C-alpha cells in the first residue's frame, strides 16, 4: 500500500518537474500546483497510513483511541493546502499580469530586468533569448 503511494507520488513529482521545465508560464504554473500536491501527500504518507479511523476522541474518553489516524500530519497538510492555494492564485495573477505587460506567456520574452539601455558587461553580443540558441 505505502509502496504504491510512494510510487504514485514519484509519478506526480516527475509530471510536476516536466511541467516546471516548460517554456510557457501557464504550464510552469500547473507543474507548481502538482508539486504542491506531491508535497502534501508526502507529508501525509510520512506520518504513516493504513487506518480508516479519523483522529477523533470518542465521546466520554479523554484520549485518542489506539487505532486512530495520526493527527499531526493532517494538521500540517491542512495548512499546506490552504497556503498552496493562496500561492497558486497569486502566481496565476502574476502570469496574467506578465502576459498583459509583455504580450507573451513565455519566460524568455520577459526581459524587462535586462533593459536595452543597461550595458550587459560580459558579452553584449550574446543572444538575449538563450532558449532560441538552445533550440537551434
Amino acid at each position, binding site marked *: 500500500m505505502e509502496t504504491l503511494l510512494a510510487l504514485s507520488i514519484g*509519478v506526480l513529482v516527475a509530471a510536476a518537474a516536466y511541467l516546471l521545465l516548460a517554456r510557457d508560464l501557464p504550464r510552469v504554473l500547473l507543474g507548481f500546483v502538482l508539486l504542491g500536491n506531491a508535497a502534501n501527500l508526502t507529508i501525509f504518507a510520512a506520518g504513516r497510513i493504513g487506518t480508516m479511523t479519523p483522529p477523533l476522541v470518542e465521546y466520554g474518553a479523554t484520549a485518542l483511541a489506539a487505532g486512530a489516524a495520526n493527527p499531526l500530519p493532517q494538521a500540517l497538510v491542512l495548512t499546506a493546502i490552504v497556503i498552496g492555494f493562496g500561492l497558486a492564485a497569486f502566481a496565476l495573477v502574476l502570469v496574467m499580469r506578465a502576459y498583459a505587460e509583455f504580450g507573451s506567456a513565455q519566460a524568455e520574452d520577459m526581459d524587462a530586468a535586462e533593459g536595452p539601455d543597461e550595458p550587459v558587461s560580459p558579452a553584449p553580443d550574446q543572444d538575449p533569448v538563450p532558449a532560441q540558441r538552445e533550440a537551434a
Partner: protein
Amino acid sequence: MPLPDLMLILPLILGIAAAMLVACLKPASAAPVGAATAAVSFVIYLGLAGGDPASASFWAVPSLDIAGGLRLDGLAALFALLITGIGTLVLLYAGSYLKGDPRLTRLIVLLLVFMVAMLGSVTANDVITLFIFWELTSLTSFFLVAYDHEKLEARKAALQALLITGGGGLALLAGLILVAIAAGTTSLTGIIAAREAVLAHPAAVPAMLLVILGAFTKSAQFPFHFWLPNAMAAPTPVSAYLHSATMVKLGIYLLARFNPVYGSEALWQDLLTWTGLLTALTGAVLAFRETDLKRVLAYTTVTALGTLTMLLGLAPELSAMAAVTFLTVHALYKAALFLTAGILDHETGTRDASALGGLRGVMPWTAAAAVLAALSMAGLPPFLGFVGKEIVYEAAVAADGGAGLVVLGAFLVNTAGVAIAGLLGWRIFFGARPKTPKAPHDPPIAMLAGPVVLASLGLLAGLAPSLLGGWLLDGAAAAILGFPPTTYLALWHGFTPILALSAVTVLLGAVLTLLWPRLMRGLQATRRLDRFGPANGYEAALAGIIRTADATTAAVQHGSLRGYMQVLLLVAALGPLAVLVARGGIAWPADAVLDPRALAFGLIAAGAVATAVAIGTFAAVMALGLVGFGAAVVFLTFGAPDVALTQFTVEVLLVVMLATVLIRLPIHGRDSRTTRQRTGDAGIAVVAGASVTLLLLAVLASPFDPRLGVWFGENSMPGGYGQNVVNVILVDFRALDTLGEIAVLAIAAFAVIALLRGAARPLRRGN
C-alpha cells in the same frame, strides 16, 4: 607600567596621535608637526638603542595563546632608527616638495600611519602583531602610491603593489601560523628558542617557503621585482621613504629575523643566495636602460635588495655583519639620492637623466649632497659605502659552495652600482648644461636638509665605522646570528686581494659611466623581450581572472529560467539520492496488504501524467483537477475527512480559477518545447520522481516514532477541550501558525487585487 616598557610603545602612540592631530591642521603646519613627531621617536629609539634587548607585553588573547608585545633588540633598533631618522627628513622634505598641494595633509597623515606600521612591524615580538603591522604597511603603501589617483598609471601601480605584496602577505600569514603551531608559541623569541621543533615539524618546509614568499614579494625579489619600479608613480618623498629606505626592506627584516631558525638549512641558503643574486643582476641590467632618474634608482634598489637577500643566504658568520652594514649604507645613500632626484625634478622640471647635465654651478648644495651620496654608493673610501662593499666582498669570497659565481655576481652588481653612481653624481652635475624646462636653483633648506644630512652621515660613519659597528650594527648582526658576531668593521683592511677587487670594480664602473648613453640606447633593444617577463605574467593573470569571472557569470547567470530549473531539479534530486545510496539507505517497507483504496493512487498518477502530456491548456487544467480529487479521495479513505473536505473545496476553486483565467489568455496551448528538449526534460523528470520515491520508501521502511501524535491525542481533550484532534492542533496548540497562515492568505489576496487592478490598465514598456 615601568618606564622602559612605556618607552617601547610610546613612538607608536605618538605617531597615531600626531596623525590624528595633523588631520585637523592646515596643510602648511602638517609637515613640521609630522617631522617633529618622527624626530621625537628617533630620539626615544636613540636612547634605547645599544642596550640590552628590551621587551614588554601590551596585549594578549589568552584563549588563542597569543601574547602580543614589543621587543627592541639590535636588529629592531637599527630598523627603528632608520625609519624614524629618514622619516623625519622625508616628512620635512615633503612639506616643501608638495607646498601648496591641498592633499598635503593626507600625505603627511598617511606617512605617519606608515611610520607607525613600520615601527610596529620591526619591534613586534609575536608573529600576529608582526603580521598586522606588516599588512598595514602594504595598505598605506597602496594609498601613497595612488596619491595621484586621477592618473590611471598611479592607480594601476598602486593596485599592482597591493596585489603582489598583499598576496605575499597571505602566504606569510599561512607560513607564520604553521611556524607558530610547530613552535607552540606565537612569540618570536619563543619560536627562535624552539628552533628544533620548528624544523622537525612535518610542515616545516612549506612553512619556510611561505615565509620566504612573503619576504620576497615585499622586498621585490625576482620574479616579483617589477612592482617596485612601477610604484615610482608615487610622489618622490614616498618613493624615497617607502620604496627604497624602509618598506621594501621589511622582507629583508623578516628573513633576518628568521635566520636564527632557518639559517643553517641548505634549502634556505640556496634559495636566498641564488634568488638574491638573480634579482641583483636583473636590477643592475634594467637600471641601465632607464633614463627616468626615479626608475633608475628603483632598479638599483632592486639590486640592493637582491644583494641583501643573497648575503642572508650565505654562511651567516660574516654575511650577517655584511648584511646589516650594507643595509645601513644603502638606506643612507639611496634615500639621499631619491630626495636629490626629487629636487632635480622640482627645480628643473624634468628627471630625465639624458636631458640633465652641468648643474653643479646653479645648484651647488644639491650637487654636493648628490656627489657625497654617489661616492658612498660607488663604494669609495672613506665613505661607509666602501666599508659596506669591502665586507660584502669578504662575505662572498668566504662563502662556501659556488663561491666563484657569487663573487662574480657581486663584482658585476658592484660595478653596475659604481656606474649608476657615476651617472647620478657626475654626469648630471658636471659637463655641459643642456636647457631645462625651468631655471634651476638650490631648493629651500627643508628640502636640502634630507640629502645633505644623509649623505654626510655616510661620510662620517665611514670615517669611524667601528663606532657605528660597536654601538648598533654588532647588536643587529647578533640578532641575525643568534650570537655576538666576531667580525668588526674597519675602514682600512690593509692591502688585500679584496682591495684589488674593489679597485677594479671602481675602474670598470667609471668606464661604464662614460659609456652610459651608448649603453642605455643599446639596451633599449631588450625591451622587445619584456613580453616574456613576469610583469606580463601579472597582466595575463589579472586579465585571466577577469575573463574567468566573466565566463563563470555567463555560465551561471545565463538568464534562462529553464536552465536554472534544470540545475535546481537535478541538484535537489541527485544530492539526497547520492547520500542515500552512499549510506546504504535504500529500503522497501514490508507491506503486502492491498485493498481497493489503492485505486485512488492510480487516479493521482494517471491525472499527473495526463496533465503533463495534455496538448491544450484546458485539458491540462482538467487533468490537474483529477489529481486534486484523487488526493482528496486518499485523504478521505485514510482517516482524514477534514483534510479531504478542504482539498475538495480548494480543488474546485482552483480548477474554476485556472480555467477562467487561462482561457482568457489568447495563447495556443501547445507545449512550445522541441522534441529534443522534451526528451531531455522527461529524463530529468524521471530522475526527480525516482529520487522522491526512493527517499519516501526509505522513510517508510524506517521505524516510526509516534510520540508527537500520541501526545496530541492525549492532550487534546484535557488541554483544548476538543474531540477533533486535528482541529485542536490547528486552533489551539498551533494557533499562532494558523494565524500566520490566515495572514499569508490575506496578503496574497491584497497582492492579487493590486495586480488585477494593474492588469486592467496595462503599463506597456516604452519600446
